[in-house]
């Protein structure tokens, strides 16, 4: 393992890009902090506080409590009455599995400022960590009644519903996301996946159209291409499918196969879409009501 000595400014810029993209690179953040940035903290200026928050959260993720406590104490020193810092303290209790203490702090923050969204979301994660998915769903739906534009929350709710196999509700959440961003190919692809998993011929058709739209918006979306291939082949072999749609499906599956083979041509994997077509009938895990 080579240890490259990084210049502190490069590390600072890297951290900044990770903050902007909301990347979860906790191990790297903690390592780079310990190796480089901690020694140059004073040079960071006001950005230093954002970095401390970032390193704190990363340290909790890695259970590096020493680093976390260092960051928290520095933040507490500078911003003694801050609700934002209090929320970080609640996160620390979460990491230590002291959920009651965490909830107490969060309730306090919410009481002081009902419009503060972040502590409400932490409550959801506390329920989720304890495996209390039903409570997490209730908390999150209450949250979304107030903060309806929060896309991250809709996505999280969709994931929670998927884990409970509540396909209709999961699909509804993704519909909200699609309304917000109709050209986001990932949302369209996710919707198709839920519909496909739900099963039934009508859902298969819906899945195929959403996969097609996702693939149209981004022909490099491998999941959309495979999904299009899968749904087209299922539809073409389904007795309910009228002949015109069958022809359409066959054309779509051919297009998807071509796109995939183009993407795969740089990869010397022998496992081609044609082999998938071969194995198509055998391994259907989704709901049995495909026909």
């Amino acid at each position, binding site marked *: 393992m080579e240890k490259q000595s990084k210049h502190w400014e490069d590390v600072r810029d890297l951290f900044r890009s990770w903050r902007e993209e909301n990347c979860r690179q906790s191990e790297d953040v903690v390592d780079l902090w310990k190796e480089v940035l901690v020694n140059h903290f004073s040079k960071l200026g006001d950005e230093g506080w954002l970095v401390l928050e970032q390193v704190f959260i990363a340290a909790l993720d890695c259970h590096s409590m020493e680093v976390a406590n260092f960051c928290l104490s520095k933040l507490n020193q500078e911003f003694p009455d801050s609700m934002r810092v209090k929320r970080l303290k609640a996160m620390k209790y979460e990491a230590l599995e002291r959920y009651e203490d965490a909830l107490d702090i969060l309730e306090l923050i919410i009481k002081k400022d009902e419009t503060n969204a972040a502590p409400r979301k932490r409550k959801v994660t506390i329920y989720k960590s304890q495996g209390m998915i039903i409570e997490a769903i209730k908390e999150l739906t209450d949250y979304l009644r107030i903060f309806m534009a929060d896309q991250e929350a809709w996505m999280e709710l969709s994931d929670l519903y998927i884990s409970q196999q509540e396909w209709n509700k999961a699909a509804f959440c993704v519909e909200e996301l699609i309304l917000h961003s109709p050209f986001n190919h990932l949302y369209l692809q996710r919707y198709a996946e839920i519909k496909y998993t739900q099963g039934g011929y009508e859902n298969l058709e819906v899945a195929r159209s959403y996969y097609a739209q996702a693939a149209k918006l981004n022909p490099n979306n491998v999941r959309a291409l495979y999904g299009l291939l899968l749904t087209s082949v299922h539809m073409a072999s389904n007795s309910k499918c009228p002949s015109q749609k069958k022809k359409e499906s066959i054309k779509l599956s051919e297009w998807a196969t071509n796109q995939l083979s183009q993407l795969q041509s740089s*990869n010397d994997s022998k496992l081609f879409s044609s082999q998938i077509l071969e194995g198509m009938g055998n391994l259907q895990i989704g709901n049995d009501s495909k026909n």
Partner: protein
Amino acid sequence: MASSCELSKLAYSKIILHAFKYPHTAVNGVLLANEGSSNHSVKYVDAIPLFHHNLGLAPMLEVALMQIDSYCRTAGLVIAGYYHASEAVAEMSPDIVSQRICEKIAEYFPSACLVLINNRQLAKQMTHTSLSVVQYCDGGKWKVKDKENFKILPNNDTALDSVSSLLSKKLYKKLVDFDDHFDDISQDWLNVKLKSMID
């Protein structure tokens, strides 16, 4: 019904590396055994990591299983088991998705085992195998396998040392699962290069 269940060092390493690569999400994968494995003892020779996002959605699972099945036919292997690490640290029972997938596998390989990772026992310096195994029985029940009937080859201690060494080199960063492959199709879900580093 298989009475003993063995996991090769390669399969075990890949399972642990997968869990370490994505510690904040659930992960799952399938276990492969040699074709024609008897019903009395199953030896899992390899593990194929599947997903770390949305394990409950069917389409990509079907595509992945088809590709793995295709590969198995060329390599004389069968999909014979399944592993799963839960998202929540404390969760120790197989969730509905894992059960359904393993039931499907059991249709083709009756003594399929469901290997669950015990998140609490994972550590950079491994002292426990951190696995618990349940086996599918006729009638749709899951039976927990005793520790005597389940072992890692060549023996538990050697395997734990070996995995700890892989973890210290952070080799989990090099592991590729199907989600990684679908994000970037040039990534090799067979992990051929990683295999040579593990052996």
